[in-house]
C-alpha cells in the first residue's frame, strides 16, 4: 500500500469502536448543545421573559386578590405565589425540555435529515435518542434554574425550597419530553402537529392540573384530566416537598411511579421507532 493511501485508509485505528459506542449519546448531546448555542439569545429571553411577565400579571395581580379575599387564610396556608410556584416551574420545565425533543426530532427526520447523517456514522438510533434526551435534560435544568431566579426575586420561593422544586419540576420535564420525543418520532410531516400539541395537550394540561387552585375544587370528571397530566403530578409533589402540602404516602409513590413509567415506556417506544425509521 502506498503512503498516500495510508492517509485515507488508516481508519481501522482511527475510530476507537469501544469509545465510539460507549459515548455515542454524549457525542449527539454535544452536537445538540452546539446547535442550541445558536439560539442562546432566544433561550435566555424566553427563559427569563416568560416568568417575569407571568409573575407580574397573574402572580402579583391575581395573587394579591386571592390573598386579600382569603381573609387571612391564604391558599393551602401559604401565599398565592408560593402555591403557584411549583405549577409554574413544572410547566416551564416541560416546555423547555419538550422544545429540545420535538423540534430536533422534526429537524432530524424531516427538515434537514440530520439523524440520517448521524446514523451513517457508528451512531445507532438508540444513541441518538439518548443524546437528544441528555441535551433536553440540560436545557430543562437550565430553564428551571432561570425561572427560580425570577421566583426568588419576586419572593415567591425561598432558597430552602429550591432543591425540592428543582427536583419535582425537572423529573416532570424530562419524562414528558421523552413522551413527546416518542410521539414526534412518528410524525412524517409537520402539518399542524405542533399546533395540535400546543392547543389540545399543553394548554388543557396547564388549565386542569390544579395550577391556579387545588384540583379537588373541580368536578371529578375534570379532575381526571389532572390525574393523567404530568403538570398535576409534578405540582402536587412540588407543593408537598416545598412547603408541606399534605399528600398521602401512596400518592407520593404514584407520582414517582407515573414519571418513571412515562419515561421508560417513552424511551422504549422512541428507540424502537428511531431504529425502524432510520433503517427504512
Amino acid at each position: 500500500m502506498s503512503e498516500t493511501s495510508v492517509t485515507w485508509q488508516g481508519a481501522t485505528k482511527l475510530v476507537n469502536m469501544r469509545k465510539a459506542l460507549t459515548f455515542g449519546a454524549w457525542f449527539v448531546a454535544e452536537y445538540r448543545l452546539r446547535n442550541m448555542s445558536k439560539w442562546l439569545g432566544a433561550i435566555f429571553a424566553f427563559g427569563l421573559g416568560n416568568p417575569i411577565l407571568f409573575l407580574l400579571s397573574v402572580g402579583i395581580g391575581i395573587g394579591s386578590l386571592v390573598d386579600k379575599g382569603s381573609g387571612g387564610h391564604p391558599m393551602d396556608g401559604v401565599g398565592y405565589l408560593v402555591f403557584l410556584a411549583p405549577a409554574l416551574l413544572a410547566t416551564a420545565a416541560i416546555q423547555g425540555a419538550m422544545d429540545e425533543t420535538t423540534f430536533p426530532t422534526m429537524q432530524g427526520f424531516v427538515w434537514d435529515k440530520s439523524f440520517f447523517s448521524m446514523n451513517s456514522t457508528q451512531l445507532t438510533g438508540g444513541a441518538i435518542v439518548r443524546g437528544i434526551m441528555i441535551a433536553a435534560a440540560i436545557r430543562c435544568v437550565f430553564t428551571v434554574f432561570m425561572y427560580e431566579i425570577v421566583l426568588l426575586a419576586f419572593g415567591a420561593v425561598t432558597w430552602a425550597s429550591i432543591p425540592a422544586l428543582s427536583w419535582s419540576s425537572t423529573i416532570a420535564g424530562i419524562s414528558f419530553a421523552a413522551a413527546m420525543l416518542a410521539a414526534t418520532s412518528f410524525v412524517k410531516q409537520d402539518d399542524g402537529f405542533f399546533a395540535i400539541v400546543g392547543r389540545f395537550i399543553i394548554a388543557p394540561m396547564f388549565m386542569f392540573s390544579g395550577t391556579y387552585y387545588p384540583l379537588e375544587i373541580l368536578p371529578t370528571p375534570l379532575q381526571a384530566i389532572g390525574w393523567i397530566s404530568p403538570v398535576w403530578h409534578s405540582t402536587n409533589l412540588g407543593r408537598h416537598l416545598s412547603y408541606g402540602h399534605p399528600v398521602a404516602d401512596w400518592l407520593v409513590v404514584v407520582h414517582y411511579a407515573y414519571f418513571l413509567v412515562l419515561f421508560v415506556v417513552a424511551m422504549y417506544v422512541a428507540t424502537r421507532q428511531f431504529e425502524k425509521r432510520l433503517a427504512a
Partner: protein
Amino acid sequence: MTQDMIVAKNLTKKYEDFIAVDGINFTVKRGEAFGLLGPNGAGKSTTMRMIASTSQRTDGELQILGKDPNTSGPEIRAHLGVVPQQDNLDFELKVWENLYIYGRYFGLARKFVKTKIEELLAFAQLEDKRNVKTDALSGGMKRRLTIARALVNEPEILMLDEPTTGLDPQARHVLWDRLFRLKEQGVTLVITTHYMDEAEQLCDRLIVMDKGKIMAEGAPAQLIKDYSSREVLEVRFGSSRNAEAAEKLAAVGDRIEVLPDRILIYSEDGDAVLKQIHELGLEPVTSLVRRSSLEDVFLRLTGRTLVD
C-alpha cells in the same frame, strides 16, 4: 486484510409489494472506483443504503469490509464515508462546525479533529469559507463540504450517491477533480449516477441497473465495446418525418434506434453512413457523428434513455 471491500450475493430489498433491488451480485475491490449507473428508480440509492449498513436487506448476502451489516452495522459504518443524495448538513452551523461535529460523532479527539478540519477545508477548497454559516454556501460548495465531512474518519470506502446532480457544469468539474484525487490516493469509491459522462470519467468498473436488476457489468470502455459500435450517427428529420425516414434507413449501419426526436445509427464509421444516407436521397435537418457512450449501452440494454 481482505481485498474484497464489498461482496453482494443475490442482494434483495423489498418494500411491501415493491421490489427495489432484485437479487443482484457484485464485488468491489480495494482501491477501485465502482459505479452504479441507471435511471431514477433503478434501485441504486437503495443498494447504496444497504452498503452504507443503515438499510437492512430483505434477502441475499452482503459483506462489507468482511462483516455482515445486519449484525455489525455500527462497526462497518465507523469505516465508511457516506455522501447522501441530499446534503444533510446542519445549515445553522458554520462550515468548520459541520466538520467538527461529524468528527466528534465518531468519537475522534477534539485536537485531532481540529487538525483534520484544516486538511479537509483545503481539500474541499473552502478555506476562506471556514466561518461562514453553511446555509450561505452555493450548491457546489455544500456538496464539497458534504464530501469533506464524509472523509473526516479517513474511511475505507467513500460512497457518493448522485454526487453532481443539480450542480452547474463548472461545479461538476471541480468536484470530479476532487474525486479523481481521492481515487489517485487509493480510496475505494462507490458512486451512483445517472450521468454517463460522470460514470465514464470516474469509474473503473460499473454495473448498469434498471428496475432493480443488473443489466450489464464491466469497465466503461468494455461495456461500450460489447454493447455498442465505435461510432454513432445522430440524424434528425423533424419529428413528423422521423418514422418515415427510419423505414428507408433500415438497411444502413449495424443497428438503428428510433427516438421521438432523432434517429441513432450505430456503425464503425459514422461518416460513411452519412454519405450512404445522402446517396439514398434523404436530407436530414441536422446530423452528428460521435463516439458511442454509456448512454448508448443503456439504450441498447433497456430500450430507454437514461435521463427521461
